[in-house]
């Protein structure tokens, strides 16, 4: 139903460099560009990061969110908009910025799916396995826009209802997508999905998105995950372990939680251990009672600062977690330790 709705009518988008592509009715400018193979810059696809700013010169746009965090006062004054929040209402002319690096990622598509399995990982983290008819092409570390099918009656309703969730599994031809949903008090989609999605729940997935995917560099890897950022880091670890050179690659995996009841990374990290040269899991808890936890305590960036990683400057570093954690970790690595900013991969959602 949703898939056919997207092909009903199209708007023509003309770009400043005289390129053009079609935008299906109800699709955002960003998604239409990506679906057409136009590498518009973006990160979160959720209105938060501000990477997909563009300047319209002709045409009208409906906005998904009225006040997205990704736009500043200055942007408003200059008439800039977010491509991920702007749905063209007809033909338009825009100035889009293109990513100078061509992405290896598959182009995103909308798919209907159904929940086929549900597993509790912790008291508030649930793994959902979703089946789609068509294959599941993505790169380890990428995310999907997920909504409940009954809340996606029309494209705008779907855009307003959906949230980004990273896949924790690997791309496959069987159409299997795994997500880890954290129950967020008050979070409309998260709370609802985490509480009510059971076998048979129908979902709409629009995927894949994101740039913080496993790169082909041959370097050893440091993964830093917190909270529901575990899923993409698990996918990166699994992806690394499936590579032809896995036997020569080392993985250091940090996982930060609050208390002992948050711990759940071990099964995923040890799963990759046999095929990799070396795997170390470092778990860090910020609020653990001393009588329940003998391991490392503090915030992830604090422990990372004290932790001796001799080859840190030569590793690829992947980060996913709550904005405060990601920000603190990136500041430490790039500004203080002076890791090259180009070796640090994360998608900013803030």
């Amino acid at each position: 139903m949703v898939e056919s709705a997207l092909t009903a009518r199209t708007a023509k988008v003309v770009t400043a460099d005289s390129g053009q592509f079609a935008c299906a009715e109800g699709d955002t400018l960003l998604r239409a560009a990506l679906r057409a193979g136009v590498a518009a810059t973006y990160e979160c696809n959720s209105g938060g990061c501000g990477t997909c700013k563009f300047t319209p010169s002709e045409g009208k746009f409906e906005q998904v969110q009225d006040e997205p965090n990704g736009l500043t006062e200055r942007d408003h004054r200059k008439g800039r908009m977010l491509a991920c929040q702007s749905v063209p209402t007809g033909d338009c002319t825009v100035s889009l910025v293109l990513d100078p690096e061509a992405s290896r990622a598959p182009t995103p598509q909308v798919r209907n799916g159904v929940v086929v399995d549900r597993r509790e990982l912790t008291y508030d983290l649930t793994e959902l396995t979703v089946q789609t008819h068509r294959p599941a092409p993505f790169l380890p570390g990428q995310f999907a826009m997920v909504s409940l099918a009954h809340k996606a009656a029309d494209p705008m309703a779907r855009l307003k209802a959906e949230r980004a969730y990273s896949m924790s599994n690997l791309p496959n031809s069987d159409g299997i997508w795994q997500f880890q949903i954290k129950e967020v008090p008050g979070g409309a989609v998260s709370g609802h999905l985490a509480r009510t999605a059971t076998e048979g729940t129908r979902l709409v997935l629009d995927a894949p998105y994101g740039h913080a995917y496993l790169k082909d560099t041959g370097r050893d890897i440091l993964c830093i995950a917190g909270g529901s950022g575990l899923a993409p880091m698990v996918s990166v670890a699994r992806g690394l372990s499936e590579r032809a050179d896995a036997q020569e690659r080392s993985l250091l995996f940090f996982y930060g939680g609050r208390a002992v009841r948050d711990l759940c990374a071990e099964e995923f990290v040890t799963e990759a251990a046999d095929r990799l040269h070396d795997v170390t899991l470092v778990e860090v808890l910020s609020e653990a009672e001393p009588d329940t936890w003998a391991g490392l305590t503090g915030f992830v960036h604090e422990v990372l600062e004290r932790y001796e990683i001799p080859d840190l400057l030569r590793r690829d570093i992947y980060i996913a977690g709550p904005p405060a954690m990601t920000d603190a970790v990136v500041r430490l690595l790039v500004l203080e330790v002076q890791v090259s900013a180009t070796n640090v991969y994360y998608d900013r959602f803030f």
Partner: protein
Amino acid sequence: MAFELVTTLDELWEGDMESFDVGDKEILLIHLEGGEVIATQAICPHQQFELVEGELKNAELTCKAHLWRFDLNKCAGINPAHAKLARYPVRVDGDSIYVDPDGDTPKIAHS
């Protein structure tokens, strides 16, 4: 060469920066501690972020988005080192700051 009047030293104090539209370019003017005025691109060569929203410390400018850091004296990247910034010619005449927007083009860097 076409220098255009952009602003004045009275508007742009030492240690301050501000972005302006000059000709067809978006240009960031920085009045460094010590007095020199630098004109560079307003948008980070990495992605679509205004450098004016970043942190300025002496001649070091850190973009707010991904913490790319630049040495404004050289208009070059500190981290990552391969990044480059445009540098537009500046002429200070009395209190007036003139910039030639045709003197360079904005740089784009891959990550």
